[in-house]
């Protein structure tokens, strides 16, 4: 006899089937008594549910798409002031110069999800904004990084992260990011205790060196991509 646990009462597949009312002999066979009826009933329920979901999806598809576009655009704006954004074909860039692209990415888990030039109202380029997908303590660290036309960091916005609350998550805070904002990207950045030569030192978040380093490395990668694009005369 299986031991009845707290959850046993919620999943009574071993509970007895309540008996259906007996039929009078000679009565017409009911649909419910047919062997296939359970399967048909289940199919009907599935069909109705799917239809209802299809309807909901149709209603919400537009708002969802709008939300996604809004979030992306807002993030780009936070990283780089611009009137409009002009997307860059990263795939073509990688195909044209695979070594340069790989060198820009650098070592470690990192990818450029998208890149755009920012243009002001008159059409002049205000800078470059790139979405980097990388890993800190955990996967799923997405950072929008903007570099102004003068080569300084124009803005950084962490879009998504699974870092530790209270520690790694603090890389979102201004207290940490101000060590990077407005600084020239020409020589790269590094965590303060590891910075040598002309590399700009940045104070890491206390107790979250790995998360801090991931963000700093992402900024360096974008700086290298910026240099690569400028070399190509884009």
């Amino acid at each position, binding site marked *: 006899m*299986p*031991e009845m*646990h*707290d959850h046993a009462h919620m*999943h009574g597949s071993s509970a007895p089937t309540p008996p259906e009312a007996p039929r009078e002999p000679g009565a017409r066979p009911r649909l419910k008594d047919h062997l296939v009826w359970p399967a048909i009933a289940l199919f009907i329920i599935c069909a109705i549910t799917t239809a209802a*979901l299809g309807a909901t*999806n149709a209603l919400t598809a537009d708002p969802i798409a709008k939300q996604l576009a809004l979030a992306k655009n807002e993030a780009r704006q936070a990283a780089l002031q611009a009137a409009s954004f002009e997307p860059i074909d990263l795939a073509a860039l990688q195909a044209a110069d695979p070594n340069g692209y790989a060198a820009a990415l650098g070592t470690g888990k990192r990818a450029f999800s998208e890149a755009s030039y920012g243009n002001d109202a008159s059409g002049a380029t205000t800078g470059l904004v790139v979405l980097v997908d990388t890993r800190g*303590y955990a996967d*799923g660290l997405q950072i929008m990084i903007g570099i102004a036309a003068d080569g300084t960091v124009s803005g950084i916005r962490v879009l998504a992260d699974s870092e*530790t609350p209270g520690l790694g998550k603090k890389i979102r805070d201004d207290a940490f990011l101000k060590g990077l904002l407005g600084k020239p990207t020409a020589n790269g950045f590094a965590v303060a205790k590891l910075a040598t030569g002309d590399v700009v030192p940045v104070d890491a978040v206390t107790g979250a060196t790995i998360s801090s380093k991931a963000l700093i490395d992402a900024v360096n990668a974008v700086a290298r991509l910026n240099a690569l694009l400028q070399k190509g005369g884009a």
Partner: protein
Amino acid sequence: MKALIAILFTSILVDNFVLSKFLGICPFLGVSKNLNTAMGMSVAVIFVMLLSTAITWPLYMLVLVPLHVTFLYTLVFILSIAALVQFVETIMKKSMPPLYKALGIYLPLITTNCAVLGVTVLNIDKQYDFLQSMFNSLGVGVGFMLALFLFAGVRSRVDKADVPKFLKGLPITLIAASLVSLSFFGFKGMIEKLFG
């Protein structure tokens, strides 16, 4: 290959479903009383996780995505898992009656184990390919087993101790779980060190 091993280690130790992500708590609390039941349950869970991934991943990539009906994934995934568990139950009843009897009510409960649905959804979320998904599911299942084993040992000690009335039963079990979870924190940062 290195990436696959990294995924395996991450899901067993660093991102342990039970102790870090809070998935699979109900069976974790319920089954860890008895080491043998814990073993049987874990093996069943690993098996169901692997089979579920093998079914749901292709279903998502080869059916839902091309048809633009990805919003149906919750429905499709959970029904697949329910059907799978039913199937496993039937097979076990026929060919492994003692194990079937030992697991009793816990077998159908695997359907509502958030860890099983959780890992199938996670594989899609993380955009793993098929092989990575399978490795991830294997790791999650093994991590579940590891947590269950460790905890069964802790629980057998706790049950023999003199616990204040206020905390007797489930409360002291949960506090013990918090300490086991704390010990797993030691694994954070391990993946970067080992795999660069």
